[in-house]
């Protein structure tokens, strides 16, 4: 089961560029939350702050608090520990090309010394089923490399890889932007099914996608969060003029 995320006074920098300014946000558990906004508005930086990936860039800096469940991830826990509990799916599928499909999916577990063959088999199957990929790959799990799949399959495999470690939160940074419409709709269906079990935060450029999968939507602009509300409210009756301008296509 997922846990909620509570963000307070979050600021982030890349070098001297102040990419996130005073973000305050409560992301509900076991729901999908979409983050929308024009390119460069800070939404990707924001999700990268939720699993401390932001700080892997040497010029990046973060201040503020992020609580996931009852843990302050910047004070109570190491980046490695938090990333084991917060899965992430990236914009471009990034399978490990030297590993088989099977090894790709259980790479997170093997990394942490999980060696029980029988349980690994079960987890790999369950994760691939959850990612709606099992039927397509079950015959060559150990024969084919993760990189030999199509783009959409690779992305679902990356989702399976994130799910295999049974995370409390799943972060998705434009997971479908590099995919064709068919793969995109599969990923969306997937998010729709997964959100009852995980807290999902999805960054997207595609407003229809936000409208389809998420209960809550946040609108980011120039490093600030302009509005955060139920998806229905954001898309039908936004309180902020800038949100309205953006979703009606007047800019961005």
């Amino acid at each position, binding site marked *: 089961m997922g846990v909620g995320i509570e963000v307070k006074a979050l600021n982030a920098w890349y070098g001297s560029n102040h990419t996130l300014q005073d973000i305050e946000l409560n992301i509900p558990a076991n729901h999908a939350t979409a983050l929308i906004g024009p390119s460069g508005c800070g939404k990707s930086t924001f999700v990268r702050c939720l*699993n401390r*990936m932001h700080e*892997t860039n*040497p010029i990046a800096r973060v201040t503020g608090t992020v609580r996931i469940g009852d843990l302050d991830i910047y004070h109570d826990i190491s980046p*490695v*520990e938090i*990333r*084991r*509990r917060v*899965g*992430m799916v*990236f914009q*471009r599928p*990034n*399978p*490990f*090309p*030297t*590993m088989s499909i099977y090894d790709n999916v259980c*790479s*997170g577990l093997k*990394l*942490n010394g999980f060696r029980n063959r029988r349980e690994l088999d079960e987890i790999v199957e369950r994760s691939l089923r959850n990612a709606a990929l099992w039927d397509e790959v079950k015959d060559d799990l150990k024969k084919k*490399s*993760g*990189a*030999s799949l199509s783009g959409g399959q690779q992305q679902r495999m*990356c989702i399976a*890889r*994130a799910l295999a*470690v049974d995370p409390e939160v799943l972060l998705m940074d434009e997971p479908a932007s590099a995919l064709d419409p068919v793969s995109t709709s599969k990923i969306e269906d997937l998010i729709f099914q997964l959100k009852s079990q995980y807290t999902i935060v999805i960054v997207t450029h595609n*407003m*229809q996608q936000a*409208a389809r999968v998420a209960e809550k939507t946040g609108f980011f602009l120039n490093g600030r969060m302009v509005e955060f509300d139920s998806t229905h409210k954001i*898309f*039908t*009756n936004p309180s902020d003029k800038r949100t*309205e301008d953006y*979703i*009606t*296509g007047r800019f961005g």
Partner: protein
Amino acid sequence: MPNPLAEASQSPTEELKRSSAADVLAGGVPGEVSAVRGYLLSRGNSAGSDRFFAGAMLLCALAIFALVALIAVELMTQSRLSWHAFGLSFFYKFNVDPITHLPLFWDPVNGVFYALPFIYGTLVTSLVALCIAVPLAIGLAVFLTEMCPLWMRAPLSFFTELLAAIPSVVYGLWAIFILVPLLREHVNPVLIAIFTEPTLTHLLGWTGLFGDNGLFGGVNLGLGLLCGGVILAIMILPIIASLTREVMRSVPNSQREAALALGATRWEMIRMAVLRNARIGIVGSVILGLGRALGETMAVAMVIGNSPEIHLSLLSMGHSMASVIANEFSEATSDMHRSALIEVGLALFLVTIVVNAFARILVWAVTRGAPARVQ
């Protein structure tokens, strides 16, 4: 109600504007052949220059084959005399010294020319060099690409590459004055103590590496195979390190992020995302380093001892193929001596080819069935 789902419709005026812009670019009035178009049409198909270019490039490529063939033919014709005298036994036979009863491989004064100790010396020093240089080079490359603070990166890369720019004779001098005494006084005694330690000798004596006749038995002179190997290691370190660094740098960042996002520590990320993806390139850079080690002449000639013997001990003196040619060629008075040295050269050529082929087979075995790199 604002509708976010509406597609921004393409207005017809947009379309019109674009087409008129294209006409202006092409030279004005629609329907007339513009100056630019006329000029481009007058250029013809340019097939002649293309053919010339293709031919020239092909010639450059064929020159490589010609060069290799020429070298091989020259080595073979020049070494015919010794090949007819000794045949294949040149590479494995030896005489027995009538006085000391030790094997006698190479005695130009008495016309004894067997090349085994040179082959042995070349292979052993290169092997020692790889054993020392490969872990160091990979460690250095990992540090440079993955953990080096930014301010240190440029100087460290610069100094690594500087190592490759030092002439080998300078390495040889440095080795004679610094490395040889260092090995003799500080390093060798430790190695000797370990490898002749009674308990270890008793336990591991069956490997043949321990005891007085083992890997570090015999007289400690400082010079010898080990010293040659160490100096070679220093010389090939920059090649392997800089190539390995390039290979690691070419591993896409998305791979590192994939590993980190799964909760990998830095070392786990390096192992899982960097080394695993770069392993083919790393083997390739090791092969190139080995190629340099096999052919390296001057520095080795200055410290290996130049004595055509074969001993297991790395402390013993030896000789290498390249160094015997460099040392003796100008003083080779007999035709047979000269021819034998050229045959050693031919053997070095062949050993290099065999080692490269072996390395390639190794690469093939390692990477068999391995997937293509991600773009």
